[in-house]
């Protein structure tokens, strides 16, 4: 009986692991197919942005979902990734690949400095703290105009090249970004299915009990926070070199709100929720051309309605409805 149970459990757990691998494989396939099928440069651009936003959202999704930390200033890390690389490549003629390391490193450092005192706070205080931090960084981007170009922004950011191949042109960048997305998904998934992931899920389940079984909740919250900052900075790096021009306006409070909205609408603590949320909110402005006027109203309504009626997010909400109709 015991041996049977052991084999059974092992089989079922490896089976769910296999399903997840299949899903990621399917995504990779879809990405490759789309790369071949889509011809329109505009469509490719949209897909690139979905990819960048997915990387951006993924870390925040894990942070909010597993550790219940809300970050209303995450655009700051997005900006740090973008501006550090931009400044190094434009003013100091760094090669973009070389600039990647300090971009990510600075974001990680700032996340550590900010995270350690902030993560001791909870709920509203944390939200306010991250909001304040985000605003300070935004103001710095705007005021350090000698380096950042101030409100007018910083132009002339070079594209990513390997030899003669320009990676930031059209389809090449698409593959680069989505390669990064898939890599990020795999890494995230490995984290979730490990001892680390179990600890995170225990914090999500009951922080009290998690502490009681010996999980150092503070340390894990910090780790996830830093990881999410790392991913946001990576997204910022890709964004800067893709567009070639950045300005503080892309990293303000509304940018942070957009990120939170993507997490909320897709569903927290879910890598597929991150993908869904990023996709929906990247496509939304494309679908509603008069959107600019109504952007804030729509985002505000989404946040309120989802939280009131479907707090687990669209992905799980729709899956639940599907399950219930199957069982009915």
């Amino acid at each position, binding site marked *: 009986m015991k041996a049977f149970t052991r084999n059974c459990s092992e089989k079922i757990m490896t089976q769910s692991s296999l399903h997840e691998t299949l899903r990621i494989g399917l995504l990779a396939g879809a990405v490759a197919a789309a790369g071949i099928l889509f011809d329109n440069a505009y469509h490719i651009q949209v897909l690139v942005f979905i990819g960048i936003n997915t990387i951006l959202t993924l870390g925040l999704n894990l942070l*909010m979902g597993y550790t*219940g930390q*809300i970050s*209303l200033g995450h655009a700051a890390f997005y900006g740090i990734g973008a501006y550090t690389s931009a400044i190094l490549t434009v003013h100091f003629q760094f090669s973009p690949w070389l600039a990647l390391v300090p971009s990510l490193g600075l974001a990680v450092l700032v996340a550590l400095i900010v995270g350690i*005192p*902030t993560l001791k*706070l*909870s*709920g*509203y*205080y944390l*939200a*306010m*703290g991250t*909001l*304040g*931090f985000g*605003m*300070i960084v935004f*103001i*710095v981007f*705007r*005021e350090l105009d000698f380096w950042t170009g101030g409100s007018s922004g910083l132009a002339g950011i070079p594209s990513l090249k390997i030899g003669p191949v320009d990676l930031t042109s059209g389809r090449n960048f698409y593959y680069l970004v989505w390669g990064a997305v898939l890599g990020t998904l795999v890494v995230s998934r490995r984290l979730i299915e490990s001892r680390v992931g179990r600890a995170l899920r225990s914090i999500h389940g009951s922080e009290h009990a998690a502490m009681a079984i010996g999980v150092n909740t503070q340390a894990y919250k910090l780790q996830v926070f830093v990881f999410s900052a790392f991913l946001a900075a990576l997204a910022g790096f890709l964004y800067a070199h893709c567009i070639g021009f950045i300005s503080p306006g892309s990293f303000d*409070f*509304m940018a942070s*709100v957009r990120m*939170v909205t993507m997490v*909320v609408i897709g569903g927290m603590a879910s890598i597929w929720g991150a993908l869904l949320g990023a996709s929906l909110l990247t496509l939304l402005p494309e679908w509603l051309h008069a959107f600019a*006027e*109504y*952007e*804030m*109203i*729509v*985002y*505000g*309504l*989404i*946040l*309120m309605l989802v*939280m*009131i*009626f479907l*707090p687990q997010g669209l992905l799980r909400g729709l899956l639940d409805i599907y399950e219930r109709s199957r069982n009915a």
Partner: protein
Amino acid sequence: MQELLQYIFSGLTNGAIYAVIALGFSILYGATRLINFAHGEFVMLGALGLISLWQGLKIPLAIALVLAVLGVALIGFLFERLAIRTVSRPEPIVLIIITVGASIFLRGVGMLVWGKDAHSAPAFFSFAPIDVMGAKLLVQSIWILGVVVALTFALHAFFKKTLVGKAMTAASISKKAAWLTGIPYEWMILLAFVLSTATGAVAGVIITPITMCSYDMGTLLGLKGFCSAMLGGLGSLWGALAGGIVLGVLESLGAGFLSSGYKDAIAFGLLLAILYIRPSGIFGAKDLHRF
């Protein structure tokens, strides 16, 4: 010396505004342990509402003032009923996102109704500024300070002396005890929201003569108001007043003597400092462990 006084005067004026906004935060927190991220937007609605009523529709000032405050209080009422009461999972993260969503939503509405331009209103009274050792003190500033202090007194009296006010405080301390003694907990929360947003509207109307108002003025004001409330101790009315004045003066001095571009960063830096060092503020917040 004259320069210093000028900065202090303008600091006191701004500080008084922050204080009224902070009062709104403290009222709500004191009664419900909630923080309304959209509070700044209610200030904006009060300000722009007054301007539309007074300048746009030419309604007499006194009536326009009352209408503006009541109108915003009504929106606060609807907000509580529709967005807060209906929440199925009232966890902190959910409520935070809802109020953030409301803040964005109201900003969007503000932009549609009033456009992106800045609007202003003339001073309520047309007296010449008073000269103090070379520095100019606007009569409007004295009036604002007076209103704020009076409002604080009135609210203090309300919470300490009237039955309703005491009931609200009791309900915030223990939901169960309040229920047992017949205090309608849900009405207390609603009243707290209405009172808080009405106070926000008051802040909005008194700010109209001294600054340009636009749809996005709420975010920054709300944050600075929150910072002031934290500084004085969240939940404390006199703390809100003190915190607001302190922030206003510090900001003014910083902008004057250091740099004006980083002016807003002062408030945020101060906020972070309070959160890390002494979250209970100068006067001590009423129990912090809920949020």
